[in-house]
């Protein structure tokens, strides 16, 4: 078992998704059970499904000085970076610690592939058209390189791309950098955008529902794909005695299959055990779990097996019925939603679920619930059997 870690302060958070721009829109939606999915109006060819699309990305070009980074994913990143006081919080961290003492760790699975797709649709005699001949966007690091340029952060910068666990794992990498003294703060997060690759790709695997997704419902039949930008600023606890805490994390591999989870939830349980060990708590201390809950038949069946480890008072939900599955951004987005749950004492419902599977029913919230939440977990699992579990706590909670 890993050793307990020193909790880190989370000094700023932000979310932009189909629920709106900024934390207030997300909190309002979660409390009122108002989802953001609507019929697919995005893909270049018809595909009968529902999507979680961020309104207005098309009308929000990057500022002229960042035009070389122009693409849908970086536009969404820029929109996300303008919310919830992030510009001030980042500038403050840079001025207190120095730009090269702030690390930048971002997760993405799509990066800017949507604009690479666009270049292929507009090939000019077998070559990319002139306006898309910008190598820095046709690569997985497009997002983090753009955010480094846009924020002035000059510390260690890395893209983590492990499919749907990408932007959960950035919290773990940031904790290690801070623990070893290689950075004093870290901007972490995830940005993924809708594109044909993921819509038709997941469709080819028969994993896309024609309805809004129904996590943990007995009739669930697949995911709804969404897009999001979510960020968190991590610093040592002394920097912000009253801020919520990252108290633990776990990472594991299933060693089982590229696109289906281990039937006994082996990897999910290993990540959970490591997260609890690093936090120095046991399952009894957990008030809320934001489940991966993609609404595929297999994920939810397997993930429900994790819930039997928790006492009756632990509440659980998947928020993918609100936002869709935001893939590489899901880890960071759902970390932010878990932190909102702690701050405001609200358990989000598993929107879309009306008849929960029996293995999950005792823990699953079907309606918004108001109750104190001191400790929350967030699960994220990706292709290749790549698992992460994050643990957060209210400041001052004895863990």
């Amino acid at each position, binding site marked *: 078992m*890993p050793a307990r870690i020193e909790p880190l302060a989370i000094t700023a958070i932000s979310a932009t998704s189909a629920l709106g721009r900024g934390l207030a829109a997300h909190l309002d939606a979660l409390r009122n059970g108002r989802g953001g999915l609507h019929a697919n109006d995005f893909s*270049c*060819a018809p595909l009968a499904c529902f999507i979680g699309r961020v309104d207005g990305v098309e009308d929000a070009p990057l500022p002229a000085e960042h035009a070389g980074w122009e693409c849908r994913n970086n536009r969404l990143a820029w929109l996300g970076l303008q919310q919830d006081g992030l510009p001030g919080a980042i500038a403050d961290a840079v001025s207190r610690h120095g730009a*090269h*003492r702030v690390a930048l760790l971002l997760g993405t*699975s799509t990066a800017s*592939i949507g604009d*690479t*797709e666009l*270049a*292929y*649709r507009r*090939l000019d005699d*077998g070559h*990319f058209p002139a306006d898309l*001949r910008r*190598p820095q966007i*046709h*690569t*997985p*690091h*497009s997002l*983090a390189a753009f955010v480094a*340029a846009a924020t002035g952060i*000059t*510390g*260690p*910068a*890395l*893209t*983590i*791309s*492990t*499919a749907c666990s990408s932007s959960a794992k950035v919290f773990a*990498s940031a904790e*290690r*950098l801070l623990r*070893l*003294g*290689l950075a004093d703060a870290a901007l972490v997060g995830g940005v993924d955008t809708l594109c*044909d*690759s993921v819509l*038709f*790709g997941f469709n*080819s*695997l*028969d994993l896309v529902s024609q309805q809004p997704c129904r996590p943990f419902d007995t009739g669930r039949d697949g995911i709804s794909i969404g897009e999001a930008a979510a960020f968190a600023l991590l610093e040592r606890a002394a920097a912000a005695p009253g801020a919520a805490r990252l108290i633990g994390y776990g*990472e*594991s*591999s*299933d*060693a089982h*299959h*590229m696109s289906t989870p281990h039937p006994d939830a*082996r990897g999910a349980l*290993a990540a959970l055990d490591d997260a609890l060990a690093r936090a120095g708590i046991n399952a009894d201390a957990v008030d809320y779990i934001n489940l991966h809950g993609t609404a595929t038949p297999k994920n939810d069946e397997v993930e429900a097996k994790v819930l039997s480890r928790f006492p009756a008072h632990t509440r659980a939900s998947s928020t993918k019925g609100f936002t869709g599955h935001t893939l590489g951004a899901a880890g960071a987005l759902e970390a932010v939603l878990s932190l909102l749950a702690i701050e405001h004492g609200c358990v989000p419902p598993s929107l879309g679920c009306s008849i929960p599977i029996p293995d999950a029913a005792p823990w699953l919230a079907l309606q918004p619930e108001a109750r104190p939440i001191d400790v929350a977990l967030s699960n994220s699992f990706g*292709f*290749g*059997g*790549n698992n992460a579990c994050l643990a957060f706590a209210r400041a001052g909670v004895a863990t």
Partner: protein
Amino acid sequence: MSVALEVGATGIGAFVQGAPDWTRLREVLLGKQGLDPNAPAKPAAARLPAAERRRAPDGVRLAAEVAEQACAMAACDPATLPCVFASTHGEVGITDYVCTTLAAAPQEMSPTKFHNSVLNAPAGYWTIATGCTAASSAVSAYRRTLGAGLLEAAVLACSEDTPVLFAHGDVAAAGPLVDIMQIRALFGMALVLTPRPGGTRMRLALRPVDADPQIPESVLALQAVASDNPASAQALALLAALAHARPVHVDLPLSNGLSLDMEINA
């Protein structure tokens, strides 16, 4: 605050056209032999089960080959080894297939090719083939992928007090992506890094810089390799330092304000 990480490289793997393993590439880097024109063009990737090897795209085979070499040299059981797979562009042959298919007939997307398109396909195939249940990751940082990936792996080794497998590689681009990415040949390398005594000692520190450090001349012997795979030039500089048994500095690009300054003590 100046912090340095101390790790040892106990295993090294490499694959490039003409030098299919570290033994051969080391000889080439030391000037004792040239590249072998008869060497296999495709990595054997013997660790992958035959059925998986047939389905595995080039980047997975490359990563599995160099990872296997490094683990064998380090006498490490891969099942217990956390791993970090770094690549500038990932599986670009699949990217070309996906984008071509989407432009022509999106409903005909191959499900296998889609799940092979993720940057963590090598990590997925590797952990499945070796039964590795430890943490695995897939990372990228464009032209700074080697430095940023190596730092990630060394930080993991030192913070968790465990040996870590680090693999780095890129395969040849395809179709219109060749113009954009300028990668015409595959190149891969891997290291097993240990925080404990053993192996070739490496001291890693972050150094403030105004511009990315330049590739040293030590890789000029393999200029043809480096020009066909720009991502490999930095790796060749690092491998040349590991091949020459004498203390040497290698400075790798890391971020807009830092380089990864490596002091290697053979």
